[in-house]
């Protein structure tokens, strides 16, 4: 869908035309009031939903702007409201500076969050009864002079207790407050935790929780994308539709206490993103197999093929058959290459003569030896099977700088933060083909990452976990000695 902008917040369709937001409406028609109700609720809603960024331009696959998006929204509101709000609009918000000044001339729930005022406000009503769907800002507004034309307001019977100056100021306060909330609602270091601001904060969080959080989906209220601390592990609450996986995962911890290091289940973490694959709708009735020529293959009746249709005599058939046989790569005709029969089925020797057996260097040396051996045994088949495209050898075509960039880009765009590294990679390495990027990824990047995972005892060895071991890999790559050059 088209991006969201400040104009769209709280937007409603207008007779088939594009959606028009409340601020835009006000701008076009200054006599109307800004529908702060819809605007406020909509901002709250969209910033609470982790999935949908509140700002335009982002589609499902792109980075979630999260914190920035929320803050941007607030900046836009600020500029939008300040730019277009006419001062004669009565301040519908209760967060006015009046409270600070302790003015007693305010009617109604001037500041429902004020501890001095015990009057019930719509916001209080809402918080005590979250079943209501919306904070009724309308009734808030009714406690003050309603929006009228500037002239009308000035001459109204019930004098506007607020001068236009105060209106703007209180609106400004609102905007500033919203901005602070956007930046970090849970910031423990905020020195404005005290007093009314702190209360506002707390109440805002409760309102958000009550309104928008699906408790099943969030393990913790603090776990928001704009949270500054590092993202939690990929284990998340499991939606009920994938019960089978959940049952499996809820196996007692005996799975994890298994002693075998390469115990398969230890390394399996069914992250939520994996469970988006191969979903079925279990609410539907049992799936049946459709019967129709539209679905079945066309199976001819059996006729005994004429054995006289000898493959060597019928040229047409010979051509067809030989095409399908593919190209034989091994054994190679005419070449007298022999493989040591004693090596068939043989694994690696028990010991090696390296100074540090089992180290990364030890493994590399042996891989290089085995490669040499295969090259001599396979002859032309060695290239045909793409050995130049296998293993760390692939890195020979990459400069150290390129390797460092690759590792950094992958590290900075982890999938756990809903980021994608392929587009940045493709853009950075515009001179390389996508195949070579994929090849480097599997042959070098994942391989090295796993060598770190294995040796650093991270607890699990997982070829799909692009984040485990990357930091160490990155550090290692910075040291040239790790990235070997000139080793055959």
């Amino acid at each position: 869908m088209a991006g969201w902008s400040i104009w769209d917040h709280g937007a409603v369709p207008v007779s088939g035309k594009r959606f028009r937001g409340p601020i835009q409406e006000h701008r076009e028609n200054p006599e109307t009031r800004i529908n702060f109700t819809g605007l406020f609720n909509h901002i709250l809603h969209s910033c609470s939903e982790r999935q949908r960024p509140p700002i335009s331009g982002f589609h499902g696959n792109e980075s979630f702007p999260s914190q920035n998006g929320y803050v941007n929204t607030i900046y836009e509101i600020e500029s939008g409201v300040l730019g277009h709000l006419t001062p004669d609009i009565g301040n519908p918000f209760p967060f006015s500076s009046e409270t600070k000044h302790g003015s007693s001339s305010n009617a109604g729930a001037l500041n429902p969050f004020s501890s001095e005022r015990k009057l019930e406000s719509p916001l209080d009503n809402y918080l005590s009864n979250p079943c209501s769907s919306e904070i009724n800002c309308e009734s808030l507004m009714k406690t003050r002079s309603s929006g009228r034309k500037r002239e009308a307001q000035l001459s109204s019977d019930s004098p506007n207790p607020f001068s236009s100056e105060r209106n703007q100021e209180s609106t400004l306060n609102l905007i500033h407050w919203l901005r602070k909330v956007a930046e970090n609602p849970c910031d423990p270091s905020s020195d404005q935790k005290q007093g009314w601001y702190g209360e506002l904060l707390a109440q805002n969080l409760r309102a958000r929780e009550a309104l928008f959080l699906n408790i099943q989906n969030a393990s913790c209220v603090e776990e928001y994308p704009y949270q500054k601390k590092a993202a939690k592990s990929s284990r998340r609450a499991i939606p009920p539709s994938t019960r089978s996986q959940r049952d499996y995962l809820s196996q007692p911890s005996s799975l994890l206490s298994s002693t075998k290091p390469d115990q398969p289940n230890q390394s399996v973490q069914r992250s939520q993103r994996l469970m988006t694959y191969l979903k079925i709708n279990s609410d539907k009735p049992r799936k049946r197999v459709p019967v129709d020529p539209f679905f079945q293959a066309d199976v001819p009746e059996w006729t005994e093929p004429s054995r006289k249709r000898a493959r060597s005599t019928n040229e047409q058939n010979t051509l067809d058959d030989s095409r399908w046989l593919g190209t034989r790569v091994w054994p190679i005709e005419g070449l007298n290459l022999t493989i040591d029969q004693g090596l068939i089925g043989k694994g690696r020797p028990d010991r090696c003569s390296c100074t540090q057996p089992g180290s990364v260097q030890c493994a590399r040396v042996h891989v290089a030896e085995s490669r040499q051996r295969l090259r001599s045994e396979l002859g032309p088949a060695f290239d045909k099977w793409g050995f130049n495209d296998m293993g760390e050898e692939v890195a020979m075509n990459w400069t150290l700088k390129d390797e460092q960039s690759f590792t950094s880009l992958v590290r900075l765009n982890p999938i756990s933060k809903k980021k994608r590294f392929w587009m940045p990679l493709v853009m950075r390495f515009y001179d390389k083909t996508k195949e070579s990027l994929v090849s480097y990824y599997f042959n070098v990047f994942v391989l090295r990452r796993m060598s770190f995972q294995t040796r650093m005892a991270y607890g699990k060895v997982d070829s799909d976990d692009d984040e485990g071991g990357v930091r160490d890999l990155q550090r290692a790559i910075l040291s040239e000695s790790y990235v070997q050059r000139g080793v055959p």
Partner: protein
Amino acid sequence: MGLDDESGSSLPSGTDAKKRKVSYFYDSEIGNYYYSQGHPMKPHRIRMAHNLVLNYGLLECMEVCKPNLLESNEFRVFHADDYISFLQSVTPETQHEQLRQLKRFNVGEDCPVFDGLYSFCQTYAGGSVGAAVKLNNKESDISINWSGGLHHAKKCEASGFCYVNDIVLAILELLKWHQRVLYIDIDIHHGDGVEEAFYTTDRVMTVSFHKFGDYFPGTGHLKDVGYGKGKCYSLNVPLNDGIDDESYKNLFRPIIQKVMEVYQPEAVVLQCGADSLSGDRLGCFNLSVKGHADCVRFLRSFNVPLMLLGGGGYTIRNVARCWCYETAVAVGVELQDKLPINEYYEYFGPDYTLHVGPSNMENQNSAKELAKIRNTLLEQLKRIQHVPSVPFQERPPDTKFAEEEEEDLEKRTKSNKWDAESHSSESEDQKPQIHYTDASEKGVVRRLVCSPTKQIKSGEENGIGVMIPDHVPLHKIHNQLYSENHSWTELKTGPEEFLRVTSWSKSVVSSQNSLAQNLTLCGHLK
């Protein structure tokens, strides 16, 4: 461990019963196809398996071929023209212009558009068809294509990471030279694409062992036995989580033994999906590599031309281990457990061994349930005529309905756990099932088109209907239609009830394809 320590049931074999001629298809490009970031299907695993095979020295024992790419007309032997054209034309850059097609062909999410998608399909399908031709020409006893085995693909749509169904294409090739072909699927997911393709024929028998119950793809019920001429020629073995080697063997061996005796296939295709292994990223069985390979070992012992194909498998180092070991089983070589040094050695840490044992997860299949399943299937096999000397009987064209099972099975399948115990094969209710056929005789029965959303006017010219024979109670059809919010009118023409369910507007029934899109009965379409 000896090679043929388990007693197979060899048919008369050649002079050297232990050795088999093996052809192995591999394309070095396969490893660089990349579905999308985070996608569990990684063709790179095939490259890893190949590297292990080479480093174990198995080359000496087999022939290795690079497959030919399948051409588009060769796909169309099974797949729909427009689907193949779509696969040829779509690219990641242009896919946003074809949103409707993407949806129609189920491409974009589980089956994303990626660079080289079409040549990927050509490669893996070419390998499978090549493997079939090797068997046809009797150039090998066993042929292998680990890049194939993508069993979910349908005639007109992609599904479950599969775009074209190489298995169906390979079987169609085998059927040119073999009268009967047996297909066995040990992937954890039901082999729905292959079963569906051959559901109505007796020339192919499909047997699938899979997890059933709140699990993709949702088909594979014990009672799905085939239809028409193909009735009793589809076997489904529904299982629960955590099945281990012993339980699996106690199902696999007796059932396949019986199948081989009764059906006597001239060729066997085994889809060796490795997601039934313990610790698979998407799977939930508890088989070890040895347990998985036991299926290969058992089939090999029958000495019937055998094709081994890949399939699922999402913990890629275990996939490589499994398929390398199964290659060795095919060839007849035993492998040492300590992995040889290879280009992907670091993937196999920290132990760097070939075999990975099962975990201690709970086996949710009780012995009693498994016995029940086994007995049901063995009973089903009894209904098949042994290979006859006369051709199979033709069924009369008007009886197009299959017997059905109890209605509460419907409810049971919604739960996570498949419950074989409370299922009875004897007291079946004749629940009617609406099939759509395109029989043009009498010009009456046409494709069924229903729309759940709009009011249907009776008497519309483009009404589609279905004939209902006498013995099927009409009210049950009504219930089914009603539960799916369809409207219908009844007509009586001759001795049979005729139910005309009409579409709601002519514009909907404008093309074959939108007809297909509107088909919702029988739980076919999403």
